[in-house]
């Protein structure tokens, strides 16, 4: 019962936050200097055409009319047509979202598996050469600019060794019967490898260091000392007792990481010419494509807020000490 009230009140808060986000998004793009019509400026562009475009885009309406129309449409899941490609916005996003999710989730999972294990190892081997070499390596890969690592990866593995293609998600001219067939194909995996590893290399720093710190804290606690006194093997202590308890902050970070990954990664997508949402989004903002930018940011906000919510729920499952009662 208490949990139900908790969930309901959180849902209410979430909706309110989303309304605020939607309003801000609506205003931000319209208040930014610039004008979506300039994409059409040409010596043969006439004022008549400009009028027609304004009408089509709904920009001839007063701001509050535009705002309420926007809210009405959002509730119905309609985001209108892109100013730029003239396609429905849902379609614009759907065209690239699967590519983005596959790339970011693959590298996120890879990074967290490596990070959790590596962090546990760093904590367990505190003071040894593993830590002396491990931490600077983790910090260096985390701090290295992604575009630089990406270009290096391209220069070595694509242009010199010729192991991987240099860009895109599929080979030139390859035809697939469906999006699923494409994502499950070897060709796609072959294209995915370099960007996914580069992104994972960047992402692993956070879980590794988080896990290590959290582990070190847990290792000082009484129940670990007690476990040692019981004569349990060190491996069991580290993995069964310490690591499980140290995972909490890492899980939160993972859930938030999923939230972030929905927006894609512009740098990786640009370096590897990956057809993802990040590039689409940047383009939409630059070209003042309000409908696409609004929809994409709103979607990111929904996922981010949702993931926060999920992380909260997970806490209570992983650690029964976390309760939802009001204190």
């Amino acid at each position: 019962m208490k949990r139900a009230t908790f969930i309901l009140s959180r849902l209410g808060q979430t909706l309110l936050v989303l309304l605020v986000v939607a309003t801000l998004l609506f205003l931000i793009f319209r208040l930014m200097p610039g004008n979506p019509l300039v994409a059409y400026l040409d010596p043969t562009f006439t004022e008549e055409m400009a009028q027609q475009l304004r009408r089509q885009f709904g920009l001839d309406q007063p701001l509050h009319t535009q705002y309420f129309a926007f809210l009405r449409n959002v509730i119905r899941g309609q985001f209108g047509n892109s100013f730029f490609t003239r396609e429905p916005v849902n379609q614009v996003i759907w065209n690239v979202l699967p590519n983005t999710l596959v790339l970011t989730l693959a590298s996120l999972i890879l990074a967290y598996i490596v990070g959790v294990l590596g962090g546990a190892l760093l904590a367990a081997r505190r003071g040894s050469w593993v830590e002396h070499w491990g931490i600077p390596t983790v910090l260096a890969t985390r701090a290295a600019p992604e575009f630089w690592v990406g270009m290096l990866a391209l220069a070595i593995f694509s242009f010199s060794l010729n192991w991987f293609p240099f860009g895109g998600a599929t080979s030139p001219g390859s035809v697939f019967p469906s999006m699923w067939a494409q994502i499950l194909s070897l060709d796609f995996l072959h294209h995915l490898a370099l960007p996914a590893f580069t992104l994972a290399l960047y992402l692993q720093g956070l879980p590794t260091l988080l896990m290590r710190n959290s582990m070190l804290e847990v290792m000082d606690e009484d129940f670990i000392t007690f476990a040692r006194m019981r004569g349990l093997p060190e491996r069991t202590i580290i993995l069964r007792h310490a690591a499980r308890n140290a995972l909490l902050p890492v899980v939160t970070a993972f859930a938030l990481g999923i939230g972030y990954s929905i927006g894609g990664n512009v740098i990786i997508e640009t370096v590897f010419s990956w057809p993802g949402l990040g590039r689409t989004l940047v383009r939409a903002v630059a070209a003042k494509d309000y409908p696409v930018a609004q929809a994409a940011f709103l979607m990111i906000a929904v996922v981010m807020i949702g993931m926060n919510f999920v992380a909260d729920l997970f806490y209570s499952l992983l650690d029964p000490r976390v309760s939802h009662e009001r204190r």
Partner: protein
Amino acid sequence: MARNWFRITVVTLVLALALGAVATGQSPDRRVRELIMLTRPQAVDAREFEMARFLAPEFEKLGVKVTVRVMPWEQMADYVWYSRDKWDMTMWQMVGRPERSDPDEFAMNLFHSSTAVNGYNFVGYQNRTYDNIALAQRIKTDLKSRQQLIREAQKIIARDVPYVFLVFPQSTYAYNNTVWDPKTVIEQTGLGIKNFWTFDQARPLSGQQDMILNTNDTLQAINPLYISGAADSWVTELIWDRLFRVGADGLPRPWAAEKADWVDSVTLDVTLRRGMKWHDGKPVTADDVIFSFTAPMGDEVPMYKPFVRNIDKIEKRSDTVIRFVLKEPYAPFLIASLSKLNIIPKHIWEPVLADLAKKPENAESYQEATPIGSGPFKFVQWKKSEEVVLEAVPDHFAAPKMKRWILRIIPNVEASLGGLRQGQLNFLGNYSGDPEILDKLVKENRSLTLVSTMDVGMRFLAFNLRRPPFDDVVFRQALNMATNKKAIRSVVWKGYAAIADSFVSPALEFWYNPELPKWEYNIRAARDALAKAGYTWDREGRLLYPAGKTETLK
């Protein structure tokens, strides 16, 4: 106490000095105000930004204060276009396109006074004599006298300096010469080797039958009735035929038309080529052609409307002969209209347009799942943000030699060079990076060939003629003389550009006027010209307006 007196003395002294400076100096209202030069950010267009940074200190040598203000394109264009009284000067560019091989578009739309209010004459240039010449060249169907008028127009613009023309950049492209027969890669005047003729005629030398080329920008649409992004037009040109096409020499040549004969100065009989087919197998008829030219006259195809505005009526004389009757003589008709409009299948678009007429959207919003044209290539697939694949139509009257044409969207410029070197690309269709790097790459790889062509597009600095001091031709001429174009060419463009002095590229030999007044870089001469016109300088060296002239801004 003594300290206090000291303080008061110092303050009084400083105040007195300051007041004295104002009193003895020139009245500040004659000073030319700080001038703002707009440019796009370095990250977007490094050369434009560098040129602006280069120009500002040169102009300051004349005693004006110039501030370079960086704005994203969407903001800058919005400001220049919709706040016509507000800005001072702006960097700008016109890009090369096949139909710009005819000077009419620039001559008319950039400088004719009718486009000053809300058209492309955003500088607000007003000149009766020029207006008359720009209009006259349109109706002179006699080439020689039209040439004379275009050259006269260039002379007037060179003298009146609404723009400081900076450079005509080189369009540089490269390809793999072990894949494509160099004899069949065609260089088009003012555009370079990336053009329709190369795509149609390039002959594969090896097992690689597909042309794989790059562009750095995502496509917006593949739609014959929507003039969208630059890369989009490479695709539409290949899928849809046109009655005429701009040839490699820059002149219109019959394409889907077998021939075209002027009956009189406003009547043109076009004979359609026989045996053409749409990609869905149906024949191309005179009715399709008539439909293609009447559709934009309605309200559903706004972007093509300007190109049919001058057509009075279109008659079908026989199954193959179509008569165009113009409202008034229009010399560039073959290039500006017949080479511009895509011929579209009536059986597909008639119902679509009828349906759209009932909706707020127009033809630009309609994306065919499989675009159908009659061109030398047919549509295979379009993976958004990734690639467009076209396939050769073997029974087209000018069937391509290659099998497929694959346009990859590669936003990473450096990676596209790597791909070219290593063979994952075999035609470099877009390169915005450092030309020297490309040059070096090609020199190190014998299998690569680079072709650099002078563009019909140009870079320039535009003045707002509505605002002082730019309303004074002497001032504009002085700024022109303070522009070191040679240095811009060699430092900013590293030599990969030609110095510009006109809106017509020297690449268009027939139209370009080689005898334009030359404004050599000469700060002294520029200052002398200003002094002669009554400008003076104050003690700090700042330029003052001639006596009697005041700065009034809207």
